[in-house]
């Protein structure tokens, strides 16, 4: 297992306090939990069974953050070897659940 | 331990326990107290198929009908459920559930039900007998496991060495009667004066499920009890 962590500055605070969960921990899949976090930051914590893909994770995460720029948010992931496409999909699904709750 | 030796240790010659294939059944009297006991169980490391589950259920039902309040001793020696397509077709899980429901009804009707693993309890073989009694006990030489570690390693695709190493500090993975005691699954081991152990069990076995609490107190299963409490308090 590998743990990856990215703390990115964000400028769009998310109002919603109810955590959002999408996805399932299964082969080729992942679960994404989005909840309230530290103001001004979007903190991503990933636990993955597929080791050595840090560069790709960083790219996917930065890409997502560039699109949404969440702040005061904590994104936690349990991954079991999902492709970057599936990771992006789940992140977007989770983000949509938050969409109505931006200030 | 073979059942005849066990029976002699528990009851001397004052028992009418008989073996019919893999099925054990009969009656015994506890000399010290004069209390009659119904006996039902298996031997020969029996695979539990539909027929054997039903045979045991029949004895429990007869005990409920004919001997109100009589205590029952479940003698467990099994290699697990019968692995045959025919048993699946006939609903082995239904037959096993039925046995479990019969034992559970006996408990609710005031029969003390004690499980004793006197030889083997493998896989799901005793999940609807010994494990659904008021309490389940075992002799120290008993073999209790879900699966041996090499097989577990193959099926889970985990390294055998890792499982073996972790077993030294975590009773969850590996076979062993001691692990089941630590986790609360087995209430205690019967050693020395087996007769005294039986009398004590009949007297002190709980009628509510204390296993999560025991697992917590003994340190072998530290979360179950707390999680249950958290759900109750949520």
């Amino acid at each position, binding site marked *: 297992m590998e743990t990856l962590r990215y703390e990115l500055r964000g400028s769009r605070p998310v109002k919603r306090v109810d955590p959002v969960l999408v996805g399932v921990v299964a082969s080729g899949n992942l679960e994404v939990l989005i909840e309230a976090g530290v103001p001004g930051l979007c903190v991503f914590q990933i636990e993955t069974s597929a080791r050595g893909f840090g560069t790709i994770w960083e790219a996917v995460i930065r890409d997502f953050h560039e699109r949404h720029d969440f702040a005061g948010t904590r994104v936690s992931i349990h991954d079991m070897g999902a492709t970057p496409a599936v990771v992006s999909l789940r992140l977007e699904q989770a983000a949509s659940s938050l969409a109505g709750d931006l200030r | 331990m073979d059942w005849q030796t066990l029976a002699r240790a528990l009851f001397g010659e004052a028992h009418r326990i008989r073996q019919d294939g893999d099925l054990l059944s009969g009656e015994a009297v506890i000399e010290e107290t004069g209390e009659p006991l119904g006996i039902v169980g298996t031997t020969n490391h029996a695979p539990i198929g539909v027929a054997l589950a039903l045979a045991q259920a029949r004895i429990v039902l007869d005990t409920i009908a004919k001997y109100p309040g009589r205590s029952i001793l479940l003698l467990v020696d099994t290699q697990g459920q019968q692995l045959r397509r025919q048993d*699946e*077709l006939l609903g082995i*899980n239904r*037959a096993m559930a039925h046995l*479990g429901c019969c034992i559970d009804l006996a408990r609710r009707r005031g029969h003390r039900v004690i499980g004793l693993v006197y030889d083997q309890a493998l896989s799901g073989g005793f999940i609807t007998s010994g494990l659904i009694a008021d309490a389940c006990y075992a002799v120290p030489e008993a073999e209790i496991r879900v699966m041996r570690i090499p097989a577990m390693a193959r099926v889970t695709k985990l390294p055998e060495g890792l499982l073996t190493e972790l077993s030294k500090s975590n009773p969850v993975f590996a076979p062993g009667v001691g692990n089941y005691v630590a986790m609360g*699954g087995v209430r205690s081991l019967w050693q020395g004066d087996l007769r005294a152990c039986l009398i004590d069990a009949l007297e002190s076995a709980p009628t509510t499920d204390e296993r999560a609490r025991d697992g917590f107190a003994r340190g072998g299963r530290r979360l179950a009890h707390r999680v249950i409490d958290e759900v109750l308090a949520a």
Partner: protein
Amino acid sequence: MSATSYAECSARQRLALLLDAGSFEEWLPPAMRVMSPHLAQLSVPCAFDDGIAIGRARLGGHEIFVAAQEGEFMGGGVGEVHGAKLTGLLMRALRDKPAAVLLLAESGGVRLHEANAGLIAVSEVMRAVLDVRAAGIPVVSLIGGSNGCFGGMGIVARCTDRIVMSETGRLSMSGPEVIEASHGVEEFDSKDRALVWRTTGGKHRFAAGDCDELVDDDVQAFRNAAIAAISRADASRPVVLDALEFEHAMLSDRLETAALAA
């Protein structure tokens, strides 16, 4: 209204679509991170909810308690935490007396990675189910996931008041692969899907009387069947001596018929 496949939904999707809209209140939700320490020790990925969502909800207006197993996580296998969530739910039902307990069961049985803990946990669930039934609270199982309901969870399902299945669902004790590994491919060819479903699938189980209701692979169909199951006058089927004698006679006849036919 177009059908939504129950089998293709995740546990949480089933809850969202099956229960009265927005009524599900989850206990020990994912954000609480009540997870398996044993999987972590084995460096196996954990799930925030350890593969089961439990809580309170309304179904057709009735207040019920509900549990949904995620069959895709560890095959829905029962580990220490997973099992304790289910046992806790049932014990709470004893205390709070909902109209019913609903079990969306999808499980391979004991989670092998947590072997001993899983076995004891399943046993605790069984006892708790029977406690709830003895209190007159109906417990209903829904089985329609593609992973089926096997092993100890299959026995748990058979300890509940009523079972609703779809054809896609399977209810059995041992998986076909285990039987094949033990007694060979002539005993059970696990790759013969038709054979597998003829032996363990919902259609066969319904025909044999081993489940009470057969519905389409559709969440709405499961919802309707669940509402009907908990609303009927005999929703709670007390485990009494007469009932067990009846069951015994039926199972004995079945065994005898099979022996004669052989």
